[in-house]
């Protein structure tokens, strides 16, 4: 009905039109005379030709086609879609931070360096690790850094035969992908019917070839791995190291520390646990923490503090012999600094007592939602287990009896104004939702979600086609993914 709703920014343009938001007077091609012709661009790129109003209106309206935490309950499992405090955004957007050049000398960077130092210390304290590097730019890069340190450790020990990383079958895709990027082979071990890993299989697969094991705890099955101490000793006894994928840290924040569980190395997802905005796909930050023996290998940069007697402390980038064994740099500068500043702001706002609450209320919300959904007739994947900060329901039965998939239910939820939980992950549970409400949602929002699920169940019984063809009230109806992949159209061209 609305006119031009589907236009791209290119379609809105007209030759010669400009926004002039960036306007530079008196530039002429003559000023390029010193550059040889052969190195110059002849034809201008075809970029949008729009007015500033057109650009603002176009992207404002596009934004309105998104679901987001700010506008909807967004219980995406494994993603910790909690409220992103505006104060943290404001603090990180202070001009002194935004305008700092990454290579500005240390003596005029003390404010920034102190921030990074404080965050390193806070993360050490929360995880129980001995050292932290803030360098990795997201969880997956944190994993890369962590597994690279495992590799560096073994190599430093002359232990060259370790070529395998073990991951549970429920592991996130980044775990095996990371292991391979680090030059390892991946060995999967099964997860048992109660959601804990198959310890026997682990024992049978662990050995001198084992470089390490990567796992989350709580696991991606939404349960706490109870055998963690045994797993740890099994791996350690075989000379392997234990990697903690911190994506689920929110569940245990302030409760127990990965260090206590026996992990040697971990990453955190600050864009999850520390409430920095997801940005529609990033940026994130994936700091790594390590136990004593991995300290020398931490990626750089790292900030050190020189306490000066009777004077203000001095902060500096770690250098020299202390970084000789580092796995190195992971980015051009110091990672996603702006995100680190947000995470620090969040940590300062919460403080000790606030951190402790996170895990508790995230867990309360998940268990409540699990109880209510179970009472409403939905099937929990691990009904005998406590939910952690998240839990799984499976629609295997619904799929069989009503030919309605988890995907159909997910799409229908959108019509009810709720973002869908994570679907089809972990892969081992058929037709599943991984549901993570987070601690920042209130009871009535959870109750609304349960009502929607009940209403959808009713629709499934009465008119399942409504689900299969959902959504019905969004900017588009069900999209054709197959067409997207088969008839690749990855860039606009004039029609």
């Amino acid at each position: 009905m609305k006119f031009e709703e589907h236009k791209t920014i290119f379609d809105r343009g007209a030759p010669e039109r400009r926004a002039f938001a960036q306007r530079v007077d008196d530039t002429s091609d003559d000023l390029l005379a010193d550059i040889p012709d052969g190195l110059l661009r002849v034809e201008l790129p075809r970029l949008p030709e729009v007015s500033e109003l057109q650009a603002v209106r176009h992207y404002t309206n596009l934004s309105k086609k998104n679901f987001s935490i700010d506008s909807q309950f967004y219980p995406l499992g494994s993603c910790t879609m909690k409220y992103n405090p505006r104060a943290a955004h404001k603090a990180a957007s202070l001009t002194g931070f935004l305008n700092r050049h990454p290579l500005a000398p240390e003596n005029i960077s003390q404010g920034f360096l102190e921030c990074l130092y404080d965050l390193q210390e806070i993360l050490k304290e929360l995880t129980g690790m001995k050292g932290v590097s803030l360098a990795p730019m997201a969880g997956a890069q944190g994993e890369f850094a962590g597994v690279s340190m495992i590799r560096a450790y073994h190599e430093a020990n002359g232990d060259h035969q370790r070529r395998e990383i073990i991951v549970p079958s429920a592991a996130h895709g980044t775990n095996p992908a990371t292991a391979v990027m680090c030059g390892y082979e991946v060995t999967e071990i099964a997860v048992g019917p109660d959601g804990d890993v198959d310890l026997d299989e682990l024992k049978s697969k662990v050995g001198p070839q084992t470089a390490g094991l990567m796992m989350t705890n709580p696991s991606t099955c939404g349960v706490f791995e109870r055998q963690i101490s045994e797993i740890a000793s099994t791996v350690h006894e075989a000379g392997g190291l234990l990697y903690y994928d911190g994506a689920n840290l929110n569940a245990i924040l302030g409760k127990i520390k990965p260090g206590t569980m026996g992990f040697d190395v971990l990453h955190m997802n600050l864009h999850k646990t520390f409430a920095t905005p997801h940005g529609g796909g990033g940026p994130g930050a994936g700091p790594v923490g390590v136990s004593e023996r991995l300290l020398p290998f931490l990626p750089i940069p790292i900030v050190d503090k020189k306490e000066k007697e009777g004077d203000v402390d001095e902060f500096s980038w770690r250098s020299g012999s202390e970084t000789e064994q580092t796995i190195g740099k992971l980015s051009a500068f110091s990672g996603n600094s702006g995100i680190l500043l947000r995470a620090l702001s969040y940590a300062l706002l919460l403080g000790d007592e606030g951190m402790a609450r996170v895990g508790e209320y995230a867990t309360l919300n998940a268990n409540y939602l699990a109880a209510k959904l179970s009472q409403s007739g939905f099937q929990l994947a691990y009904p005998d287990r406590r939910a952690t900060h998240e839990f799984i329901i499976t629609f295997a039965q619904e799929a069989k009896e009503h030919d309605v998939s988890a995907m159909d239910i997910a799409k229908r939820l959108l019509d009810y104004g709720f973002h869908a939980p994570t679907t089809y992950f972990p892969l081992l549970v058929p037709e599943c939702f991984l549901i993570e409400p987070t601690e920042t949602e209130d009871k009535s929002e959870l109750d609304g979600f349960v009502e929607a699920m009940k209403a959808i169940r009713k629709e499934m019984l009465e008119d399942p086609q409504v689900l299969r063809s959902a959504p019905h009230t969004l900017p588009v109806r069900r999209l054709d993914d197959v067409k997207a992949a088969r008839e690749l159209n990855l860039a606009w061209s004039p029609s």
Partner: protein
Amino acid sequence: MPYIPHTRSDVELMLEAIGADDIEALFDEIPGELSEERSSELSSGLSELEMMLRMQERASRDEGNLCFLGAGCYDHHIPAAVWDVASRGEFMTAYTPYQAEASQGTLQLIYEYQSMMTQLTAMDVSNASVYDGASGLAEAILMAVRSNKSNKSGKVLYAEALNPVYLSATNTIISSQGIELERLPIESNGVLAINKKADQAPAAVVIQQPNFFGRLEQVDEITNWAHSQGALVIAVVNPMSLGVLKPPGLWGDDGVDIACGDGQPLGIPMSSGGPSFGFICCKSKFVRQIPGRVVGKTEDLDGRPGYALTLQAREQHIRRGKATSNICTNQGLLVTAGTIYLSLLGAKGLRETAIKSHQNTNYLREKLLQLSGVEDAYPGPVFNEFVLRLPVDANELVALMTEQNILAGLPIEGAADEGGVVRNKLLVAVTEKRTVPEMDRYLDVFSNVLGELST
């Protein structure tokens, strides 16, 4: 409780529904030995006001310096509309657009981004996105080595004047992949000689344009040479420079195979170097090897146009250990800002900005070279930055100019040296944002400091 909405009565009702006595009970599956006493090394929570005061104090300590530093991060003007729109909650607080129907805003924007980047680079396909330019180069090299079916040597040549931090990050990231990086040395004028010879045919060749010294490489010739060796060519480009410089898709007879770089100049604040975003573009035939998200246009049930993540079989969440990369969360919000930036500038605005940067750079360079003892380290045309050879220690000059709140530039010695030796070269960057009075102030302070240090 900050950010936690639960009232006492909420908690009671919820525990009742769960059938638990208290919240503690929900943790009863955690083996007792793991639950230690809560540490309390952290200080207690600050109010928003207190937190802001602390952060303000720190931010203000580092503020107020006139920036002539570049080396991969540039102080360009950012139109106000860019972040006003990019910061809308719907962009900022959405996840990766897995649920396409509820994410059409981000998805269409990414499609538009891909369109802009392919136009800018004259390549066929763009991803969206990798972390930054440095790690992106590593991904591009991995991609090239995978893609080059005829050369499995794992040997990759790079032009010496590659940004040294790009090289370090690349080394870290590709270290376990059996790839051998080999330097193509530059001439005394700071660029590659054209008649290179390689002992062994490389799988890929990396060329940065403009190079780390701001100098312009003979990209056509090098590209042709590399292709003649059966290598894939990877271009590392500054997207802003493409307003005036030949796009990598047109280098040589066939264009490069992969173009990558950092999007920071496109509307992203310097912000200590991050977050910005890395881009990777390639020829169509390599699309299945590209890392990161790719959005395709498709249709909905009613035949209306719509957008969705596509070719997901490349990615870790589907392909796991066989994915093209482990990347998951990338730099979405910065892509959003970059897209808005490009739509606000358009081709003409981008070109003007690039020309003005060039004009300013030439202005300052010429004036500096008139100072006695100051030499051109790498004579020849540059874009955006240049290297001086000083009669004094560059570190000392920088330190003294810093005292006057001028970031004079980056002291360097050769291309990749990061050590602590005396450096007498200085890499200076000038953008369109620097005014003539600012540049004249630089000149003034520079020549004073030079005088001071020379005596």
